[in-house]
C-alpha cells in the first residue's frame, strides 16, 4: 500500500510526563499506522499515532482504539486523557498544543500522579426502586474512606440509578475493591458494576480554545 506522506496528521490520545519509553504495544486508531509514538515539548509528551488529514469518525472501532491506547499507557504511566477526536496536521502543531496548554497539563499531571479512576454503576433489580435516593449518597460516603474523590454523573440506560467515578491511589486499588464488595453486600437490592482502571477522565477537565490573531 502506498502511503501519501503529505496527507498524514497526528491523532492525540493523551498527555504524559516525559520519562521512560512508552509500553503501548497496541494498535492506534488507524490500522495503516499502528505505532504509538510520543511527541515531546519541554517535560511533557503527547501520545500520538499517525492518521490521515481528515476528521476521524466516532465509530465503535475508533472510540475503542482511543481507550485501548490510553489504557495501555496507563499501565505504568500517569496519563491525562484527551477527549476523543483531537488531531493535528503536523508534529510541530502537536508541539504547539503542548506549549500552549503547558501550565494546565503540567498541573493536571502533578495532581493525578499515581492515581487511577474507577467507575461504579448501580442498577436496581427489577422494579425495586425503594431507598435508592438515600443509598447513593451513603455509598459515596462509605467509599470515601477508600478513595480520594468521587464524581456523580447522570445515570443512563435501563435500571441504572447510580453512575459514579472514584479517584483512587494506585496502591489503594485492593482497598477500593474491598469497599465495593462490602457495598454490594450491604445493598442487596442493587446490582453493581465496577469498571476500570481508567485514566482520570472524570477528575480533570481542561478546555482549550483556538485564538487567532485579530
Amino acid at each position, binding site marked *: 500500500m502506498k502511503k501519501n506522506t503529505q496527507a498524514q496528521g497526528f491523532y492525540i490520545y493523551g498527555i504524559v510526563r516525559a520519562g521512560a519509553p512508552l509500553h503501548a504495544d497496541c494498535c492506534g486508531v488507524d490500522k495503516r499506522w499502528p505505532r504509538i509514538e510520543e511527541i515531546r515539548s519541554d517535560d511533557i509528551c503527547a501520545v500520538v499515532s499517525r492518521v490521515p488529514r481528515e476528521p476521524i469518525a466516532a465509530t465503535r472501532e475508533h472510540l475503542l482504539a482511543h481507550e485501548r491506547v490510553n489504557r495501555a499507557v496507563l499501565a505504568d504511566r500517569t496519563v491525562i486523557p484527551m477527549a476523543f477526536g483531537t488531531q493535528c496536521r503536523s508534529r510541530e502543531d502537536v508541539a504547539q498544543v503542548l506549549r500552549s496548554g503547558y501550565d494546565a497539563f503540567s*498541573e493536571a499531571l502533578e495532581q493525578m500522579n499515581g492515581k487511577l479512576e474507577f467507575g461504579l454503576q448501580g442498577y436496581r433489580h427489577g422494579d425495586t426502586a425503594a431507598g435508592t435516593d438515600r443509598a447513593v449518597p451513603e455509598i459515596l460516603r462509605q467509599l470515601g474512606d477508600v478513595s480520594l474523590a468521587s464524581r456523580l454523573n447522570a445515570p443512563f440506560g435501563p435500571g441504572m440509578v447510580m453512575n459514579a467515578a472514584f479517584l483512587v491511589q494506585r496502591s489503594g486499588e485492593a482497598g477500593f475493591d474491598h469497599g465495593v464488595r462490602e457495598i454490594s453486600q450491604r445493598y442487596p437490592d442493587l446490582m453493581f458494576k465496577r469498571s476500570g482502571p481508567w485514566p482520570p477522565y472524570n477528575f480533570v477537565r481542561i478546555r482549550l480554545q483556538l485564538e487567532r490573531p485579530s
Partner: protein
Amino acid sequence: MNSSLDAVHGGHSLVDVLDRVLDKGIVIDAWVRVALVGIDLVTVEARIVIASIDTYIRYAKAIGAMPMSAAPRAAGPRELEELAAENAALRALVKDGIAAQGAPARRARAARRPARIPAPARTPREAQ
C-alpha cells in the same frame, strides 16, 4: 456471598467508553478540532489557549472542602439533591426532544449531558 457485583476487567464496554471520552479529560471544542485538521497552526499563527481547567483538587475547593482527604465528601447531600433534580430535568428535556438546547452554560457536568446524549445513538449506525 452476594453475587450482585459485576466487576468488568479487560476491555471496557462501548457505553462506558462513550460516557467518558466525548466530553471529559482535555477537551478541544468540536469546531476547533475540525479546524485543526484543516489549518496549520504555525503558519496561520493561530494559538491554542487554555479556556478553563478543573481538577479534583479545584473541585474540592470550589465547594468548600478543605484538604485533599476531604475530597471524597465533596458531593454533599445538597449537591446530590441538586444533581438529582438537574438529572430529572435533563431527562425530561431529552424526552421532549429538545436535547440540543436549554442547558445552562457551564453549569455542573450533568448540564452538558444533553449535548452528548444523541452521540451513542448515532455511533452504532456509523459503525456499521
